[in-house]
């Protein structure tokens, strides 16, 4: 099994202090429907940024950005759905309510709290061991953005209600076209084998990102490479720039829709050079990567899901007991 190949970069069990074990994951995210990523609210343009097109091609282009917040939040929520289903979310000590994101009352005990972290809890804080990075579109944003006019008609089917008042719900809004590729790098620090399966499972199982995700925002995530090492991979900006140079060198037409296979090949040839870089020790071969994904799929399958999640949940037990004892003491002193 390929997860054994990563053994020296995996923690045997959760430890409180960082030990410099780093797993880097190269992810290709492809939109499967219209998608909306913006940071300034309704009606504002999509998140985009002017960056250098390639490492060698130094002209600047506008690229779409999928910010790190827009990646990690849906992926956490995906994992938490399963935790909730198996009753592995605990009651928050502060508010007596079940563990819930962004309510200022994390349970501090569940898998999600331990792996993705929490702040401002009742008793303490936990740093995230899943590091995300802004992902960039390969092509310039001008190719990738369309406009939709939205008109919310009344139940009469017209823009006027029964009293004859005109609807004000008419506007034009930007969206990202389907088939847009984002290249992304995720970093996992000091995770155990089960935590790796959990985090990558979340990444592979999450299918909706961005605004209005019950209607649009469908996205497919593909893992193109897994690295083990003592330091991080180069940034996703440098990756996307390297891929851009490679596509130009290979005379791939840089227009939307971009050929996915050509993009994957270009990405592979860029990341294959990384193993020689400082601090990056090894990359899983494509067979090992397939085996790893198979391993993840098996653990998340309906039959094994519960055993897997319960085993992961139990691995944090020693850290929970320390906490429970300290709260007991606190009560006595009162």
């Amino acid at each position, binding site marked *: 099994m390929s997860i054994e190949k990563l053994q020296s970069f995996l923690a045997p069990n959760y*430890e*409180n*202090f*960082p030990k*410099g074990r780093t797993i880097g994951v190269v992810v290709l995210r492809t939109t499967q429907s219209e998608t909306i990523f913006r*940071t*300034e*609210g309704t009606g504002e343009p999509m998140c985009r*940024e002017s*960056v250098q097109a390639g490492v060698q091609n130094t002209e600047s282009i506008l690229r779409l950005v999928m910010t*790190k*917040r827009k990646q990690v*939040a849906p992926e*956490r*929520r995906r994992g*938490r759905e399963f935790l909730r289903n198996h009753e592995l979310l605990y009651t928050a000590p502060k*508010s*007596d*309510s079940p563990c*819930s*994101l*962004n*309510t*200022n009352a994390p349970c501090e005990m569940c898998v999600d709290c*331990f792996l993705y*972290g929490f702040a*401002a*809890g009742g*008793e*303490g*804080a*936990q*740093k*995230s*061991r899943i*590091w995300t*990075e*802004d992902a960039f579109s390969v092509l310039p944003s001008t190719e990738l953005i369309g406009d939709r006019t939205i008109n919310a008609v009344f139940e009469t089917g017209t823009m006027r209600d029964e009293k004859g008042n005109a609807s004000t719900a008419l506007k034009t809004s930007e969206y990202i076209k389907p088939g847009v590729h984002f290249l992304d790098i995720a970093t996992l620090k*000091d995770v155990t084998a089960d935590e790796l399966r959990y985090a990558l499972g979340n990444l592979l199982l999450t299918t909706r990102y961005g605004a209005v995700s019950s209607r649009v925002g469908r996205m497919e995530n593909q893992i193109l490479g897994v690295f083990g090492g003592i*330091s*991080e*991979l*180069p*940034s*996703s*900006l*440098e990756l996307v720039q390297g891929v851009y140079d490679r596509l130009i060198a290979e005379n791939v037409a840089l227009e939307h829709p971009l050929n996915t296979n050509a993009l994957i090949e270009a990405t592979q040839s860029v990341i294959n050079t990384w193993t020689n*870089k*400082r*601090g990056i020790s090894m990359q899983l071969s494509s067979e090992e990567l397939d085996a790893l994904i198979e391993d993840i799929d098996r653990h998340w399958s309906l039959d094994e899901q519960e055993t897997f999640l319960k085993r992961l949940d139990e691995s944090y037990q020693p*850290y929970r007991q*320390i*906490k429970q004892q*300290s709260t007991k003491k606190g009560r006595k002193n009162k």
Partner: protein
Amino acid sequence: MPQSELNLSDSPTFTTARLVELWCAEPVFFASRELSDTYYTEGAIGNYALAYALGWARAPYRLTGKDTGRPRYREDLTPLAGQHYILPAWPVENSPSYRFERFNALSDAYWYAMTNNRVATAREDLPLKRTGKKPNTYRPSNFPQTGRLRIIDRGNRFQTLVFGEGELPEYIRVGKFTSKVRVDVGEALPVRQLPADTYRCNTYLNSADLPPDLEPFAFDLIAIPPASLLKNLQFHGEAWQIGNFLIPANLEFLGGNSRE
């Protein structure tokens, strides 16, 4: 750890320093100033943040009990005295470029309500609220749910001087959102010791790290937590010259004081 074996009395002063350039592969955010629901990043990267980012000291993943309420700079950084030191990073261009972003935080429930600085999730509490009572989930929280961030933009470059030996990582993560920053290490430059005189410093300095006998005359203050930064410091005292940079001599984290 070799750090704890170090004897402070015969600690060697640094003989060389390296000029390091930091390139922001991602936007960098620190809550340097908080004005209502807007959070500002100042155009500098503090040297305590950099010391942790470079792996010289490591903060635990999980904090419990009284550790959550206080920083560990003294325990973590003063053992580095004489071994490693880094200045706060200053922007290469005169002023860095910033960007503004909105953020909002939502719950993972299907039903939620934005209440007074709080995302409420318990629909059961609605009737209680209508009667004028304030259920727990509706009480305001000391936790921002929406706001605006001023962030150092992607592609900005910062410079700093690193004292002491040892390889530096190629990439580090800094800031509240652990943003990726590339580290380009320059050649080692000799540190020239200059006698006590009046000098003008052309780097940023951490006010807590200055040697006790230094006489500062004038400076610009960048008021940020945990310790304010100084720029354009004019001072009387011994100095170090590194290339074109002039800084007060004998800088150490927290002035090298391991105790109050």
